[in-house]
């Protein structure tokens, strides 16, 4: 049988998704179902003086209008931040109470006030207009930069500071700076983004009063963890009688990792009203209430020797958490960020300080890359600036500082197992024809255009994560993964995973692993995920973890199947267990014609006994059945790395930037399905280029989200991109037996600095993300003004 691993197998899931047969939460309708709409705060910051639901409750079709008080009475708990960060002074992070439905105050536009539940959506909407909320509007804190000097939003949280965290050796880093030949400083802004999954969030709660089981259908990347949190912290329903189903989910990008207020409220409402309750988010509602991403302001500096060797790095960041601390909000700007600011450079010492602040904006949490794009952006921008200030070629300067020996213990946290950074950088330089750049630049100039080239190299810590390591850093849970391989008596295989596929094509990739491991045809393998009642507890999908951690759990469960199969085969073939070899789905006794297919073994395991024969094929004392579970806790993170090169052409008349070419060479370790990997790169690049040139979640000073629809929030379109040039190098990961590193986030991590370095190279002056046409035009105008002044 040809190896499935490494081949471009067509996606098993394409047929249903391309023919409109996906079954998303909004597609599900239950008998006797009610419809819900949320009353949301129109103000960024206000006290709730009173909520009058009387008129709404009497409106046609309305079943109930639920408010925060009702949840309090039912003792439903608030939302939690799941990762404890300790400030540099030793105090724990400060998180305000976060009731699912606000009781006393609202802290961002879109914050939850109440739920109107009615027979039809129309009636629910009509009644929602009748709910009267009396607010005392307060001055909003909307600016990340000003948050620490503004009014205190949450009682007792001074300076709106959740934590003031540090990482690295400050004294040693100070010393490196005082011994430096040159210090380069830079201010960096990482713009706030709205994740914009194609499918907006949705939830349906369904309570069965006979079995007392509560089911929640929801758009989650992580149904097991959602159930755990909703049971343990929100006290919605006990875990063993609570089922969370995340059916087909149309993208998440991180924004569906964490349970939201809406999940808790809908589950609780269904139980309270004893009827199914359905809520489907609308697009502007999603802009307002999904967790956003990024939003950092950073000052950083680099210590250098004359010859271009980097000797130290200092990073000082303010990270915006929004109105409350969401589930992974506190780890994103700390442990997913700080350790990565070193990039793939051999920097002997660094110090990173992060102040996380509350503002009256939507909560900010993990979004594709989570912390690592912010880290990569700052190191790659300042590396560019340093090369220019030193008068060195930007490619040479980077190469001068690459890590070259593996394993490499970085000065902050990570121990990088493998890599070859010259290999992908050189390959990318070649593919991008770096030597021909000046010629292309002259050609652009002849057309009146400004051409620039930008580099970005990166490493990311993926395969999240070794449980002991993350728990020692404050994680509330270990981040292992589970798998179960269940042979059915007829020889086909059900594979259960605790990860969740919402665009990552697990159905195909994971089946390829099982097909190779067990010699079973792809069409006889079915992946089961997204339902807490099916398969073992798992930790979901994010942080490019599913293959490295979940895929490994699957491989390990396959190994257990093979081990048991060998014992059964030995008995059936009257051979010694150690003699049995397993290859291409067959157990064989070498040098004989004795063999059993894995299907025959499965059959024998389930039907131990044959008509007319008493003799069992199973070895004495062995349990029947062929089903194995494995839990895998990785020994280390995995470290994908790569080099991206972008060329842009800027029209100085309008400021418009066109991405002319984009080249990337990534090292993801072994590839299971290169076609799927390519798709992940495309999507990541689209989001990263989107961040660099187009996307921006913009709050005005009153805390209103100005970009709350596609009329104003600019999503990149296909015509914004060139044909991407994609290639790979491979140093297999040593931290997992598949040798895989993860590819889901790389594009979004690497591309913003590649694009911005190219834009800045083209226009010869700084500009912040997104480098919209207007901003570039203004930067050019400023530049020529100051040039005229100087002259």
């Amino acid at each position, binding site marked *: 049988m040809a190896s499935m691993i490494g081949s471009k197998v067509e996606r098993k899931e394409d047929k249903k998704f391309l023919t409109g047969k996906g079954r998303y939460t909004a597609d599900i309708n239950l008998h006797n179902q009610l419809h819900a709409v949320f009353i949301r705060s129109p103000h960024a910051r206000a006290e709730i003086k009173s909520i009058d639901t009387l008129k709404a409750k009497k409106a046609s079709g309305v079943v109930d209008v639920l408010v925060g008080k009702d949840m309090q009475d039912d003792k439903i708990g608030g939302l939690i931040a799941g990762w404890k960060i300790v400030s540099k002074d030793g105090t724990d992070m400060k998180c305000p109470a976060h009731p699912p439905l606000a009781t006393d105050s609202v802290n961002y536009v879109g914050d939850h006030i109440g739920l109107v539940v009615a027979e039809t959506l*129309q009636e629910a909407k*009509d009644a929602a207009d009748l709910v009267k909320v009396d607010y005392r509007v307060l001055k909003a804190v909307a600016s990340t930069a000003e948050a620490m000097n503004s009014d205190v939003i949450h009682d007792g949280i001074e300076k709106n500071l959740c934590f003031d965290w540090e990482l690295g050796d400050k004294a040693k880093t100070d010393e490196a700076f005082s011994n430096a030949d040159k210090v380069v400083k830079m201010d960096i802004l990482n713009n706030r983004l709205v994740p914009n999954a194609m499918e907006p969030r949705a939830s349906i709660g369904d309570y069965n009063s006979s079995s007392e089981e509560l089911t929640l259908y929801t758009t989650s990347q992580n149904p097991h963890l959602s159930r755990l949190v909703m049971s343990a912290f929100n006290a919605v329903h006990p875990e063993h009688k609570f089922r969370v189903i995340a059916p087909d989910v149309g993208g998440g990008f991180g924004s569906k990792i964490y349970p939201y207020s809406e999940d808790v409220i809908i589950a609780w409402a269904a139980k309270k009203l004893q009827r199914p309750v359905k809520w489907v988010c609308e697009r502007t509602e999603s802009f307002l209430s999904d967790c956003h991403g990024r939003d950092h302001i950073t000052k950083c500096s680099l210590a250098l020797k004359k010859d271009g060797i980097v000797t130290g790095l200092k990073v000082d960041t303010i990270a915006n958490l929004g109105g409350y601390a969401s589930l992974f909000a506190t780890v994103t700007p700390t442990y997913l960020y700080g350790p990565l600011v070193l990039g793939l450079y051999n920097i002997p010492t660094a110090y990173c300080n992060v102040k996380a602040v509350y503002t009256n904006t939507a909560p900010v949490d993990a979004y594709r890359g989570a912390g690592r794009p912010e880290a990569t952006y700052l190191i790659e921008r300042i590396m560019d600036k340093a090369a220019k200030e030193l008068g060195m070629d930007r490619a040479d300067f980077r190469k001068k500082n690459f890590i070259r020996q593996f394993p490499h213990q970085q000065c902050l946290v990570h121990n990088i197992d493998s890599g070859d950074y010259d290999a992908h950088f050189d390959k990318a330089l070649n593919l991008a024809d770096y030597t021909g750049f000046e010629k292309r630049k002259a050609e652009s100039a002849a057309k009146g255009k400004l051409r620039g080239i930008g580099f970005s190299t990166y490493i990311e810590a993926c395969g999240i994560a070794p449980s002991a390591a993350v728990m020692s850093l404050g994680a509330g849970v270990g981040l292992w993964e589970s798998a179960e391989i269940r042979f059915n008596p007829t020889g086909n295989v059900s594979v259960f995973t605790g990860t969740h596929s919402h665009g990552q094509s697990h159905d195909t990739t994971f089946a390829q692993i099982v097909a190779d491991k067990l010699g079973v045809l792809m069409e006889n393998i079915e992946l089961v995920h997204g339902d807490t009642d099916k398969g073992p507890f798992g930790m979901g999908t994010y942080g490019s973890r599913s293959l490295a951690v979940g895929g490994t759990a699957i491989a390990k469960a396959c190994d257990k199947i093979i081990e048991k199969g060998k014992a059964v085969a030995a008995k059936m073939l009257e051979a010694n267990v150690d003699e049995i070899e397993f290859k291409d789905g067959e157990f064989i006794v070498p040098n004989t014609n004795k063999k059993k297919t894995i299907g025959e073994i499965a059959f024998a395991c389930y039907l131990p006994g044959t008509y007319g024969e008493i003799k069992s094929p199973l070895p004495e004392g062995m349990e029947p059945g062929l089903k194995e579970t494995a839990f895998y806790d990785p020994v280390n993170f995995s470290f994908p790395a790569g080099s991206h090169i972008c060329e842009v052409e800027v029209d100085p008349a309008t400021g418009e930037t066109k991405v002319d070419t984009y080249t990337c060479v990534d090292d993801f370790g072994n590839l299971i399905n290169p076609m799927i990997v390519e798709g992940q790169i495309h999507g990541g690049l689209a989001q990263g280029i989107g961040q660099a040139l187009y996307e921006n979640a913009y709050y005005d000073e009153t805390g209103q989200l100005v970009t709350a629809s596609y*009329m104003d*929030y*600019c999503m990149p379109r296909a015509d914004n991109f060139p044909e991407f040039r994609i290639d790979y190098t491979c140093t297999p990961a040593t931290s997992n037996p598949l040798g895989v590193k993860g590819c889901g986030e790389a594009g979004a991590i690497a591309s913003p600095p590649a694009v911005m370095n190219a834009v800045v190279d083209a226009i010869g002056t700084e500009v912040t993300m997104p480098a*919209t046409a207007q901003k570039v035009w*203004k930067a050019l105008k400023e530049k020529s003004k100051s040039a005229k002044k100087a002259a």
Partner: protein
Amino acid sequence: MKQFNFHEAKSVKEAVKFSSKNSAFLSGGQTLIPSMKLRLSSFSDIINIKNIKDLKGIKVSGKSVKIGAVAKHAEVASSKDVQKAIPALSSLAGGIGDMQVRNKGTLGGSIANNDPSACYPSACIALNAIIYTSNRKIEAKKFFKGMFETALKKDELVTAVEFSIPEKSSYVKIPNPASRYALVGVFLAKYKKDIICAVTGAQPVVYRSEEIEKALHNNFSPESLDDLNLVTEDMNADIHASADYRASLVVSAAQKAVAHCK
């Protein structure tokens, strides 16, 4: 969306008869329906005019192109006759929204709506259009009154628009990066004696740029606009374009329009 009565009008007369203080004509629905779904507007009666025969069709004569109010953007874009007579007009239509919008949205709906960043109003001004309604003819320059405001009465229906054929023309849109409506759009039409430069998107309502027209009268070339600094006072300003940026974009668009005028 709130409940409403739906009327299928078979003739212009019938459509007018159905209309009331609280009714709306439904043409392509690309503006009307989203605004109803978002509950920004609601009506007791919706009158579908899409199937009225008299509102359909494109007629080209030696001097003018007359297009029915319910002609879809895609029809105008793909009409061989329009492409030949006024290529800029078909390319304008082909650049509106996306394929779905072009296959639904209509000329009549667009001008009746008079969105400050819509494309068609600039063509109407530059091509000295006559707007035919259920009871009169209106010159384009008297039709577009202000932001989302036209000379139409509540029960008045646009039936067709007649565009005069210039010697040469071109339309250049600089799209809003998010919505891709016109951040600014410049429709330039060159006649034997006259040059009209109609600008949309830049101000609350479509207007003629006298500065550009004057400069081009002297010398019909992109370079003649090189040093032109437009007054920014009346320019729209939003997060996508400040007044001075918009003013500069009008000049850039006009220069491109001159370069591509045919």
